[in-house]
């Protein structure tokens, strides 16, 4: 793909999301075309996530959007890691959409945020993925290189 392909597309995405974003999604910083930060909130009254704001870190490679971005939750004093059977306590997200197989280049930053919002909204289990502690201790791989086993695709 030609050089600057990712930058060009991200420039256009940025132009759009700087002027309007769906409710519960906010752009925090986007100073370059490598890493963006966004905040998301769950808007309904799911007691697991009510009144909380979560910080997402997007990292884009030069082949975006042909390849998916890397998306993780990051922890700050006022930004916890949401509890969810597909979110490890170090912020790594196990979501089909963000994997090599589930990704599609028509997805974008906004649609990813919306998918994550609905992934949280639809959850009622107050638990981490099985083997969370071991995974968090042992994992040295980048999120997109991890071969997740999608053990319960209905969550």
């Amino acid at each position, binding site marked *: *793909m*030609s050089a*600057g*392909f990712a930058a*060009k*597309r991200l420039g*256009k*995405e940025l132009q759009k999301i700087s002027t309007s974003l769906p409710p519960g999604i906010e752009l925090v910083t986007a100073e370059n075309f490598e890493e963006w930060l966004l905040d998301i909130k769950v808007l309904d009254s799911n007691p697991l996530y009510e009144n909380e704001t979560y910080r997402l870190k997007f990292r884009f490679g030069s082949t975006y*959007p*042909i*390849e998916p971005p890397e998306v993780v939750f990051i922890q700050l004093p006022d930004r916890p890691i949401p509890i969810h059977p597909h979110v490890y306590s170090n912020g790594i997200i196990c979501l089909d959409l963000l994997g090599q*197989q589930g990704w*599609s*280049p*028509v997805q974008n930053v906004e649609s990813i945020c919306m998918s994550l919002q609905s992934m949280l909204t639809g959850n009622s289990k107050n638990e981490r993925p099985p083997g969370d502690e071991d995974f968090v201790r042992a994992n040295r791989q980048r999120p997109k290189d991890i071969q997740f086993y999608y053990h319960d695709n209905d969550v």
Partner: protein
Amino acid sequence: MAKPTQLKEEGNRRFQAGDYVMAEALYSQALIADPSNPALYTNRAMARLKLSQWDSAVADCTACLALAPSNIKAHYSLSQAHLALRAYDDAVTHALEAHALSAKAADKSLGTITAHVLKCKKERWDDAEKRRVREVSALEREVMELLRREREVAVREAGGDGLGGDALQREVDEEWEDKMLKMREVFEKARPVEEQKRREVPDWAIDDISFGVMVDPVITKTGKSYERASIVEHLRRQPTDPLTREPLYAAELRPNLDLKQACEEFLEENGWAADW
């Protein structure tokens, strides 16, 4: 004397290393020994583009095309040289030629060439727009100057016979002031500021993968159109429809000719959108 192939390889090495002067000289030597090798001309053209020797790059591409009329690199380099020389129509023509050949051959360069087509169209439009603005503002200066002179004459003539001249002069002067103001408003309205507000690209013209205006839209089995370069790049990685995830192969894509024409027409009117 070294063989042309050795000279060419050494030239390629120098080119890779960024030594375009030496690369150009080596390709020239190779061409003396083997003047009918199209690749030597395109290689030298690329070195000459790097050295900003536009005219001699054009000569190399033309020589190559005489030997190999459907050489993608020759059309592409020729377009780049014409663009640098501000021969915008030629730049667009050869960019489109390179694009068509690249699409037909499913060449890896399709993405780069697609971007180049848009760049040529954008620069051609910018140039026409600049000229238009320059012409309008020259005309504005001229018209205002004529009005100013007419006003002087009219005011002078009104004061000619002395009797009640002052009041009449004032009246004529005010009348002309009003005329000039109205003329200025007319020019003001014609300024491109108005256009800036309407600068929106319709969704139908946009490729959902690159988010750029489509140059060569192709349609999938499900009826959705994408820029050829974008969807082909995606299918190379994963042969599925981006929307439905059903199997999809590059051979199943069909050109969407009506949409292509609509995009072309849109760009003719809105050249700024080429790098929107």
